[in-house]
């Protein structure tokens, strides 16, 4: 619903009017993964939906609340004791919980995408167009006097290709999956849910700070790869697929930088998914080996 409303809002404006506003933010362009001009295109401004705090909050709230619940939440409530007195393997408990959480996450991301599709197909936006040329006796005389552009309502679906948003949706899912797995990992070691949530939010904030710091100056740029948020690039993915003709399935893009490559749209998502799987692996090992404290 949120993504639909977001697109409806975007559709109310003719974007060229934002040019002066964009210029005001030119100094902050280094923090943006894409040139600011992209936000003067409907593709770009719709792609910005994936950076909206409300959408991220929904995804992260689901991931952190579900992930923190699995072990430390159950321990906190004391329900793990009776549950594990049944012949259930610990890793099966974690797996069953993980499957439901991932399914829920997929539903959330899919509904965000469906809202986006709905928004694009049900909304039209004002576009300024030059009027048809005026011809007198077959001669174009339009240039002889000034003509104000005509505003016409154009369906967004004519301006924005939908497939550009598949990679950002997958990227959103990957971010959610990683945060879910991180929460599960901390939860499987911890005893109190409030502390698990605190630790995960703390890690997220630290990573965000690291990312901002890395983006701020050339000297601190080396910090960027140490933040998992560097792998969350929905805006760049929209630009790469729309304007750089890059396939959403590209994992690596060759560059002249010291690594010799940087991630493509699929690469960023795969990096987050791999980190998530690693966190899940640690969670499985930690949970199957740990002592479970008695309920308090």
């Amino acid at each position, binding site marked *: 619903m949120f993504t639909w409303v977001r697109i409806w809002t975007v559709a109310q404006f003719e974007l060229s009017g934002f040019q002066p506003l964009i210029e005001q933010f030119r100094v902050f362009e280094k923090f943006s993964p894409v040139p600011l001009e992209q936000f003067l295109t409907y593709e770009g401004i719709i792609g910005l939906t994936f950076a909206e705090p409300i959408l991220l909050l929904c995804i992260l709230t689901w991931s952190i609340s579900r992930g923190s619940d699995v072990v430390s939440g159950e321990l906190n*409530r*004391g*329900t793990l*004791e*009776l549950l*594990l*007195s*049944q*012949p*259930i*393997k610990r890793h099966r408990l974690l797996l069953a919980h993980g499957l439901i959480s991932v399914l829920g996450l997929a539903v959330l991301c899919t509904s965000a995408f469906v809202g986006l599709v709905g928004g694009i197909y049900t909304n039209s936006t004002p576009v300024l167009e030059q009027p048809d040329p005026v011809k007198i006796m077959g001669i174009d005389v339009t240039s002889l006097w000034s003509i104000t552009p005509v505003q016409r309502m154009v369906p967004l679906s004519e301006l924005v290709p939908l497939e550009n948003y598949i990679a950002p949706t997958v990227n959103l899912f990957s971010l959610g999956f990683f945060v879910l797995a991180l929460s599960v990992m901390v939860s499987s070691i911890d005893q109190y849910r409030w502390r698990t949530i605190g630790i995960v939010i703390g890690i997220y904030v630290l990573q965000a700070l690291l990312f901002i710091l890395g983006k701020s100056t050339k000297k601190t740029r080396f910090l960027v790869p140490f933040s998992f948020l560097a792998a969350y690039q929905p805006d760049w993915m929209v630009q790469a697929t729309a304007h750089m003709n890059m396939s959403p399935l590209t994992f690596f893009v060759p560059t002249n930088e010291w690594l010799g490559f940087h991630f493509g749209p699929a690469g960023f998502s795969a990096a987050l998914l791999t980190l998530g799987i690693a966190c899940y692996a640690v969670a499985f090992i930690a949970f199957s*080996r740990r*002592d*479970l404290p*008695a*309920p308090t």
Partner: protein
Amino acid sequence: MNPSLAIEVDKLVKQYRGFRALDELSIEVPRGGVFGLLGPNGAGKTTLLRSLMGYIRSTSGKAFMMGHPVGLDSLAVRATTAYLPAEAKLFRMMRGSSVLEFFSHVHPRGNLKRAKEIAESLQLDLRRVVAFMSTGMRQKLAIACVLATDCELLMLDEPTANLDPTVRGEVMNLIRQSHQRGATVVLSSHILDEIEDLCDRAAIVVEGKVQSSVDLHTMRRSFVLKTRNPKPSLPQPPDGLRKQSQTASASKQSSELWELDTSLLSINEAMQFLIHHELQLTDIQPLGLKAIYQSCSVSS
């Protein structure tokens, strides 16, 4: 591993940082028996049960439950064991009936019909959501979940805590019925009467060790005799009569306590021995768990 034993624990140690919760604890529970675990708070009873269920890993020692090695085959252990934790917590958002259904389905030996029968016998309102149940009602619900399973071994950690005396009696009857169906029962409790009524063997655990192992059948035949004018030297008493190891308290220094096993020596014979040696009998009482428990607490 002894196949006649339901539980075999050999020198089990659980060491925490600077604290030994189980200190080379060993117990043997025969199959088909009712075994009581007694001990003060923090003695290690719950730690022992939780180690056996695989919640915590022992530092050293071996344990087998129904022939399965604890820790190595925890799944098989839990498939044959029904465990009621102390202060069992249930899913707060579920109705009582849903909780019974859940546990009946998740355990391969679950029995929903029996679970409902038990809940009915405990006068439990299954329509109520767990969050709105009293502590006692939640305990009854947990008991119904656990006692309904057709497991060979029942481990109950303070099952009657939070229950009123009438329900307590009902729960004792249910445990008795489970035992009559062939289940081995391990009961941890602070209530000595319950252990005395129900169990045929008991272990008193103090500071992570078994301080005393009691055969309750023998105990029920035994009496404590109190005598005055102790003699410094007495001949060996007849079989079945023995002087208790502990001394009387400071105010009763001139008294001595004797333990008499009436399966070996009648009360008359014991009294003849005491009179013959000019020991004045001042009191005679059946030997109860309380006396044994107190003697263990004093000696520890």
